[in-house]
């Protein structure tokens, strides 16, 4: 298993570490981190800088009542379970309907967190249907292609898991904003390179790279389309195959 070759631009890692990135793009970054020890180090460093800046913050006195009422709350039972705040509200695995994971495409059964919890929450609401049982809605997708809407973010932001059969044509990038593609299984290629598991690829909506899935294995990827990423202007347009260590 090789580590990813294509990484998030550092501006996005900074936005992830300082908390300014919206949930859909943060889901892509957090999932890349599960595949990429090098970027985990970067984020840990950026968080340490955040901790150092917190230490330097000026002191804004809190009211005396603040500590008093806090001390009174210490013995209250915690409302939320031991799940991190991030995943509160996402149903645990056991809440999956029995038809849950069995029919899923194989790559979806072994996704890392946090993506796995998001997928499970989505399947709990809308059970998986094998692609052959669905009406084909356009000729643009090869037979056997599928997508799952994870319903993260407010429209027009879209967060989808997409499957493309080996050798198949990839869906065109959405024109509404920057596309973040994170490869989860198989691979795909365009004139810029070949992208495998864990690689993060940025697609500018103005450009059409005509990507295609590699022959053989099905290509599964997480695709976030986010117009605000385009407006912020912080994204570098080029791919980022290097990571500073």
């Amino acid at each position, binding site marked *: 298993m090789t580590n990813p070759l294509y990484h998030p631009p550092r501006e996005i890692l900074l936005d992830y570490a300082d908390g300014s990135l919206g949930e859909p793009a943060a889901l892509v970054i957090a999932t890349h981190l599960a595949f990429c020890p090098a970027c985990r180090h970067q984020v840990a460093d950026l968080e340490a800088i955040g901790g150092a800046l*917190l230490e330097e913050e000026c002191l804004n006195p809190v009211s005396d009542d603040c500590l008093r009422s806090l001390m009174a709350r210490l013995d209250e039972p915690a409302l939320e379970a031991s799940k991190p705040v991030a995943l509160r509200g996402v149903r645990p695995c056991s809440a999956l309907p029995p038809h849950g994971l069995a029919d899923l495409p194989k790559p979806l059964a072994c996704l890392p967190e946090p993506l796995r919890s998001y997928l499970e929450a989505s399947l709990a609401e809308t059970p998986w249907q094998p692609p052959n049982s669905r009406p084909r809605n356009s000729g643009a997708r090869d037979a056997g292609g599928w997508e799952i809407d994870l319903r993260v973010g407010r429209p027009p932001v879209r967060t989808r898991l997409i499957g493309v059969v080996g050798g198949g044509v990839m869906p065109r990038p959405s024109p509404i904003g920057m596309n973040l593609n994170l490869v989860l299984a198989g691979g795909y290629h365009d004139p810029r390179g070949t992208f495998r598991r864990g690689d993060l690829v940025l697609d500018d909506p103005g450009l059409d790279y005509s990507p295609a899935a590699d022959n053989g294995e099905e290509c599964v990827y997480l695709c976030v389309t986010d117009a605000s990423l385009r407006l912020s202007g912080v994204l570098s347009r080029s791919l980022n195959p290097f990571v500073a260590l």
Partner: protein
Amino acid sequence: MRGSDPAFGGVLVRATVERLMMPETAPTERVPEMQNLNDLVLAVARERSRTAFAALFSHFAPRLKSYLMRLGTEPGQAEELVQDVMLRVWRRAETFDPTQANANTWIFTIARNQRIDAVRRERRPEIDLTDPALVPEPVPPADRTLEAGQETARLNAAIGALPNDQAELLRLAYYEGTPHSAISAERGIPLGTVKSRLRLALDRLRRLLREDI
């Protein structure tokens, strides 16, 4: 959020610049050594020590309130959020691992996530380091974790030693609400220069974190 309202960002930039120009409002209290802050969290974790917790509160609450208000939180809500953050510190103290991050960094991440939860009403996607599907470190991580207690002190010294323009941009850019483009407009510095100075500052601090001493 970032870049959504340049005028708002401008106000924050100005407020932060004013703060930077008035050193007398900077923290003068440098009470607990970093190592002691870690020990205080560990005392909460192991002994449920309310004394240690109150000491953590007196150190962090005024800083957290300032941090939250600088991100646009109203004073009343900021105090509520400070309480929520510190309550999480109390409840989750046993998950604190000083070999992963020191107390400042750990509490910074709790405050960041709590604010996303409460103000933006979003979840915060985070990796799970115990997840079997996580791709592990190729080799055991370097020993820098042993000195996590000194890390913040070294970083603060390094931030103090940065050239003024870099240190200022770092503080301005670090938190949400001051997009790079707003800094550029506010200070009359080209966007490319803002980014390259920020990159220089981050490179310098990261090199320091990776140095073996």
